[in-house]
């Protein structure tokens, strides 16, 4: 591995606008990595890995019952407005993320902190569970043990922000961010570009490597790629569109331009357990058996691997030995007959409408047709699919492509609660299978309570078992684990894992330019 070089200015492109850089609000995969770099948090990850390391915290201690976490803050860390970061900023920032007035989507992550319900219910303004005894110390008191709590403190919603800047921005903090991260937002021309400059005062030496990165938005991926080939762009953030993939891959410079790496992603079809005839477990199993996952990976030009279980391979707890349902048309037909549908049935398959999702839906449709299931496709805008999924009895099957679950943090629990647990199986929820298994829910709670670092392996195994056991009920068809493909210019340096960092997509802190 070569040593990173310092300096250089790069250009990154995205199709969509950067919606907001407010860490309490931003929750899409584009702003995710920018927010990561603008702010610092108590905990963070080693670049390119899912390994937690202290960041703003110098050290941390957990009480034996797993209910009290004590952090010592690093000294001399400054916000980009010049003020030093103190313990009360941490408290303020997390309370702000939880406060309903902020309308942040991440409040739920902090559910284990004492006083959470009071704040979300509007009964209290501050979290009784967070204390700042002095400027350098933060203490968290939890109402229940939470094994993922350190991960929670590493997600964007836990980013530390200065109160005075938030108030000065008067609700526009997302456009005028102030943090203590590796980069500072220099300029933002709405609809055109954002310029991030390195934070010269950042507390880790030689981090970041590049001097600045400019994010140009509104760039069609196809055109971004043409520009990249001409050397006008350094990173095409949206990846390589299918139409261009083979051309680039097979070109002479292809291998150096394409970063193709695994991410914490599973693409699946939800089978609505509250809709006939999918309420019958045999039918759901039959559907699982009917899907030819190999063919789908081929349609994706080999940019994915067949999935066997909800967890992606990179996730702790993934069971390599679990084979899941392999493609078997005869068995599927037999199961359907057993369930009383020898001639199949008619149903509807929802999908989002951006390439290649409708194509994958059509591939699924053809596989289903082979066992007699006639699925009508409804390809809609994402928002409409999400709303159909959250409406009881509405969508029998949803292909998750385009909205698929990418983990917030690398812990198996993150794949359960909202999307497979009972809590999500409510109107407006995200459990589109409407699958609710009280027994599994209990096991999940038990696993999450094992917060003792010594029990990590045991906990991981417990989670893994939950996800393989759930496949007996077959609420999903895990279809593929899609790899992420990013295109970068030839001068960009750094390993694949920092362009497809498991915790932050592109790690702007770690990339560098070869002069």
């Amino acid at each position: 591995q070569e040593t990173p070089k310092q300096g250089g200015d790069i250009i990154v492109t995205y199709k969509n606008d950067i919606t907001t850089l407010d860490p309490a609000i931003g929750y899409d995969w584009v702003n995710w990595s920018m927010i990561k770099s603008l702010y610092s948090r108590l905990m963070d990850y080693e670049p390119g890995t899912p390994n937690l390391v202290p960041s703003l915290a110098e050290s941390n201690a957990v009480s034996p019952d797993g209910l009290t976490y004590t952090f010592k803050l690093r000294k001399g860390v400054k916000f980009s407005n010049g003020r030093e970061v103190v313990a009360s900023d941490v408290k303020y920032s997390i309370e702000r993320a939880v406060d309903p007035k902020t309308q942040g989507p991440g409040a739920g992550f902090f559910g284990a902190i004492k006083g959470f319900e009071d704040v979300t219910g509007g009964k209290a303004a501050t979290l009784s569970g967070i204390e700042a005894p002095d400027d350098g110390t933060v203490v968290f008191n939890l109402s229940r043990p939470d094994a993922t709590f350190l991960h929670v403190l590493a997600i964007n919603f836990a980013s530390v922000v200065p109160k005075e800047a938030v108030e000065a921005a008067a609700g526009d903090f997302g456009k005028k961010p102030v943090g203590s991260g590796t980069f500072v937002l220099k300029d933002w021309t709405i609809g055109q570009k954002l310029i991030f400059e390195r934070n010269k005062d950042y507390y880790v030496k030689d981090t970041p490597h590049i001097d600045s990165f400019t994010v140009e938005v509104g760039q069609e991926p196809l055109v971004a790629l043409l520009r990249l080939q001409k050397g006008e762009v350094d990173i095409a953030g949206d990846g390589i569109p299918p139409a261009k993939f083979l051309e680039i891959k097979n070109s002479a410079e292809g291998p150096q331009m394409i970063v193709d790496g695994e991410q914490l992603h599973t693409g699946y079809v939800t089978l609505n357990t509250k809709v006939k005839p999918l309420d019958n477990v045999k039918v759901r199993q039959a559907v699982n058996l009917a899907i030819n996952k190999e063919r789908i990976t081929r349609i994706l030009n080999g940019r994915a691997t067949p999935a066997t279980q909800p967890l992606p391979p990179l996730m702790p707890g993934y069971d390599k030995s679990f084979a899941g349902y392999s493609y078997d048309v005869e068995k599927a037909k037999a199961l359907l007959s057993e369930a009383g549908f020898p001639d199949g049935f008619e149903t509807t398959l929802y999908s989002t409408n951006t390439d290649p999702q409708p194509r994958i839906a059509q591939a699924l449709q053809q596989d289903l047709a082979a066992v007699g299931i006639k699925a009508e496709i409804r390809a809609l805008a994402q928002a409409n699919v999400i709303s159909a999924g959250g409406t009881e009895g509405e969508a029998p099957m949803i292909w998750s492509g385009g909205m698929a679950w990418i983990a917030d943090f690398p812990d198996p629990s993150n794949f359960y609660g909202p999307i497979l647990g009972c809590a999500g199986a409510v109107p407006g929820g995200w459990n589109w299978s409407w699958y609710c298994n009280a027994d599994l829910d209990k096991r999940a709670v038990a696993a999450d309570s094992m917060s003792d670092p010594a029990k990590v392996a045991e906990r991981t195994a417990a989670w893994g078992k939950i996800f393989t056991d759930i496949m007996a009920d077959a609420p999903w068809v895990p279809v593929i684990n899609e790899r992420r493909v990013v295109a970068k210019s030839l001068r960009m340096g750094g390993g694949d894992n920092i362009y497809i960092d498991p915790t932050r997509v592109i790690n702007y802190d770690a990339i560098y330019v070869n002069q």
Partner: protein
Amino acid sequence: MAFLVLRRLMQAALILLGVAAITFLLLYALPADPARMIAGRSATAQTVANIRAQLGLDQPLLVQFWTYLVNLLSGNLGRSYAQKTEVLTLIAARLPATLTLMLAGILVEVTLGLILGTIAAVRRGGFVDRLVMMASFVGASAPQFVVALLLLYVFAVMLGWFPMSGYGTLAHVVLPASTLGILGAGWYARMVRSAMIDVLNQDYVRTARAKGLSSRRIIFRHALPNAVLPIIAMIGIDIGQFMGGVVVVEAVYGWPGIGQLAWQAIQQVDIPIIMGVTLVSALAIVIGNLFADLIAPVIDPRIRTR
């Protein structure tokens, strides 16, 4: 005249109100719940309910509409759900780009349409006429995304004459405006041609020839102003047609206009932005129509006194 302007302004205001009402009603009939979209996938039911209350989404529809209108009158278009910013700020930041693009597009289509239509009319029935009519048919029928990519590929990637993407200089405008203009030019060329053929058969053109004027002067000074009359009304309608094309063209050329904003907002069911963009484009169309109505008398003195 002043009276006419005033009356038209009042009608325009009514139309805007109508557009606002219809859009509002339709948007709220949508099943997608904005509160849920904001809250995200990890939110509790409580959070969603809180958000709904804060946005006033739990109010009766009419109350919501009334609030919206009152805010609108004070120039407040609301805040974007997804971007948590004033819609007005977002639109204001992008409007100049779209207006530039539209004006340039109209310029291209009208100029191209006038030139081609005139040439075809003058050479009526000949080879040039057929060629021009065929080309205009292809132009009017080609898918815009493909045209955009083709122009980009040929003139930016292969020839390198124009930048591939961006906004700011004249060179940046050329390709997007041409893409937008080609489609319209096809339609205009056909309309100009038939109007022109009509006009060239008029007695006053014969009078002009009897004066010994050059063909160029006859065409540009006598025939064109008359042929252009029926086309002016089209320009007003065109602005509405452009809104669709703008989305595609802005996307391909990375043009920072409201087309992209609208497209994203639609995907995210960001109702305040959809409302805002709708109203702004309706305003543009209404102004376009108004302009067409007001410019017609400048060219045609007969309408002035009517």
